[in-house]
């Protein structure tokens, strides 16, 4: 399941909902991305996105993870709008019988989301306002999954 929303999410409630009444799950991994103030350099972060494409892209990324790993449940929640340091940005949850699938799928979802989901961060602070630049390391992380995909 995927959700794009302005409001905050409750990690515990999301995980609880995902495993409610289930006795077949053995491993649940969650990733939460939060706004860093970088030692005071950031006082506000605004997330712009491309409504419609964002949802479509997150669904494609989730479907790709489900095709690669035996997931029993998965969730992506991504916020947009104005955020403060410490605020939640993104939540990814994966559930599987075994921990390796849950860990790998969660990392994959984040790596792909970072390079494919149409979000753009703008940071404000004492030094002014700037658009965050994409990290080359994110491209490398996403590309590292490619060989597996081709091998399938």
């Amino acid at each position: 399941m995927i959700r794009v929303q302005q409001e905050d999410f409750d990690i515990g409630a999301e995980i609880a909902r995902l495993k409610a009444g289930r006795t077949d799950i053995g491993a649940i991994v969650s990733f939460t991305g939060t706004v860093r103030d970088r030692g005071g350099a950031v006082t506000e972060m605004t997330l712009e996105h491309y409504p419609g494409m964002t949802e479509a892209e997150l669904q494609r990324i989730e479907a790709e993870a489900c095709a690669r790993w035996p997931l029993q449940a998965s969730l992506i929640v991504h916020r947009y709008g104005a955020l403060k340091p410490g605020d939640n940005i993104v939540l990814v949850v994966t559930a599987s019988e075994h921990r390796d699938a849950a860990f790998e799928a969660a990392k994959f979802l984040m790596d792909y989301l970072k390079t494919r989901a149409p979000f753009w961060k703008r940071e404000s602070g004492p030094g002014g306002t700037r658009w965050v630049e994409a990290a080359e390391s994110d491209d490398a992380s996403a590309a590292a999954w490619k060989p597996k995909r081709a091998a399938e």
Partner: protein
Amino acid sequence: MRLLYFAWVKEKAGVAAEDIEPPENVATIAELIVWLKTRGPEFANAFARSEVIRAAIDKSHARHDAKIKGAREIAFFPPVTGG
């Protein structure tokens, strides 16, 4: 054809969305960018480093050599920075 601009591409171009009809000989995303740059200094500036501009056709990522024929919505934006 609807064009959308996001993040600093939008800020530099000074427009978020518009409906345009590019010339017949504009067949790809790359050619569309070349044509857009002729529309004024804001566009020339927004697309100056065209190699870093990302595009989407009808809400799917598209390469610069992708054909635009039949596209209803084309979006231009910087590399994404979510997550």
